[in-house]
């Protein structure tokens, strides 16, 4: 009886540990291969054992064949640009839906929600034409434009604002504060969990985005990390430089990974929060 109670959980723990190890192997390999010296031989390139003196040679080669510095700058511009505009649009719209009464409010809310089904990535073909018409083809602004309005963010801010008791605003309103001062000084500071959750989800999505930038961007000077990595991968494949491939991939994944490990709880809570509390 007693044995049973301990054997079951132990077996489950062992199975879970095994699966977690299998899940982690692609990343373990990346870490090991990126620091493996070339002389260590390519037959054992797949080995997960770090049986060598680590070297940065693969990273040097990666920086020589891909312009990662530029890719970082472009990606950061896109991510920050999208988020900056979104924070304004979703705060304003979220406030309107949460606190103001106006005719057509419910209909307009559905007008927003449709964006959740018609995901921008499904509309790359017509959106490319619009981007060309707007003169944004081959610009980073063109990469960002489809994401400036966010139904998800609007919904999130509406829910967040609704969760804030009205007493705080009433007090400010009695003191004669205009609506924008109330939003700026009262609501937004209290809505920080919602804003942070949205920021994490938005930054992750746009850091990782590939197909749309690939459609819009032509000039190598405007390449983002994901486009750069795709080009770079082709080169590394051709030269069979697996260590360099690992190093380049690591360069693309590292920033988000580091932020994730540092703020793990926040990340997980944000993804769950964005799903559950909406």
């Amino acid at each position, binding site marked *: 009886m007693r044995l049973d109670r301990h054997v079951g959980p132990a077996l489950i723990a062992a199975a879970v540990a095994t699966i977690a190890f299998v899940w982690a192997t692609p990343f373990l390999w990346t870490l090991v291969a990126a620091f493996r010296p070339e002389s260590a031989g390519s037959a054992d390139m797949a080995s997960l054992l770090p049986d060598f003196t680590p070297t940065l040679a693969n990273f040097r080669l990666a920086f020589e064949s891909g312009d990662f510095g530029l890719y970082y700058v472009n990606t950061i511009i896109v991510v920050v640009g999208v988020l900056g505009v979104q924070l304004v649009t979703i705060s304003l719209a979220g406030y309107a839906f949460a606190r103001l009464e106006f005719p057509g409010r419910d209909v307009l809310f559905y007008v927003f929600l449709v964006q959740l089904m018609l995901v921008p990535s499904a509309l790359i073909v017509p959106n490319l034409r619009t981007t060309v018409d707007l003169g944004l083809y081959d610009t980073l602004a063109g990469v960002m434009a489809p994401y400036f309005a966010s139904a998800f963010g609007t919904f999130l801010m509406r829910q967040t604002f609704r969760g804030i008791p009205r007493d705080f605003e009433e007090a400010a309103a009695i003191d004669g504060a205009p609506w924008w001062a109330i939003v700026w000084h009262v609501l937004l500071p209290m809505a920080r969990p919602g804003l942070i959750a949205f920021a994490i989800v938005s930054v992750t999505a746009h850091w990782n985005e590939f197909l749309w930038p690939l459609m819009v961007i032509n000039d190598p000077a405007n390449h983002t990390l994901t486009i750069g990595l795709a080009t770079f991968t082709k080169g590394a494949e051709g030269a069979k430089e697996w260590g360099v491939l690992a190093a380049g991939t690591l360069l693309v994944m590292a920033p988000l990974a580091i932020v994730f490990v540092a703020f793990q709880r926040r990340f997980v809570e944000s993804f*769950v929060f964005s799903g559950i509390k909406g």
Partner: protein
Amino acid sequence: MTVDAIITADVLDVPSSPAQTVHRRRPPSWGLAYALLLPSLLGLAAFTYLPVLRVAIDSLYVTPHGAGGVTRFVGLENFARVLGDPAFRQAALNNLVYAAGTVAPSVVLALAFALAVRRSTRFNAVVRTILFFPSLVPLVAAASLFFFIFLPGVGLLDYYLAKLGVSGPNWIGNTDVALWSIVGLTVWKNAGYYMLFYIAGLQNVPRDHIEAATVDGANAVQRLWYVILPALRPTTAFVVTIALIHMLTAVDHVVVLTKGGPSNATNLLLFYIFQEAHENFDTGKAAAATVISVAALLVVSLGSLRGMEAGSRREA
């Protein structure tokens, strides 16, 4: 990813506005409300509504690529060309196999993971992190890694299979295997993301229901089947919906790993659209194929919304 979360909100939405007190300090300011919505509405108009209209119209015209091409109205000819294109039919069929092959195992694994690591221990926290981590990585980066993993002979998979005395197939070079390799990559990438929703969903399963079932003599399997799964129905509906949407909207791995090959074995609808637009410059075909894929997306979304409503009604 941003897209996904919202649908849950509707589903799992606990009544979000607790007894709103109606204080009306000042007359309702309609103008202000519309002004605040304007920036968002402009964005939605330009990149959600206009494109649908535009692609529907474009699908009825043909514009020859290159200078001097004159656009002309061709009616439904583009649809006939797309539907008659073996590559399109293959892509549509592949997409069905890909969706069926990916969604079911991802969702089952996600639930199994969530059940295994739902308690907050230090060990579970580490495991959760590992399982969730692939979903934070760009799909392009995952594809780059899997290029090496799938490499014949010296790649990670073959290297370790050889130690077990197994020789693997050519993972992405064999027409019978390639699509399943893409499926494997996708399951690895997404299962941990869906797990988060199940972990959150499990926290909302009433404890006393589970305890009552235990007192009534239900074993673990019975508790899962009769108590936990029914309570998780809205979560499952949501996870299946976002999983299906992923099947129609993410092809980065196909672009990097296989380019739809070998001989269209891994071609998917969105990749077909991308190719027609970006490589063959056949705007008519790309538009017609987009209309078909948008229709599929709407069917998935509306179908699952109904499923979710049914699910939540059963809950209530």
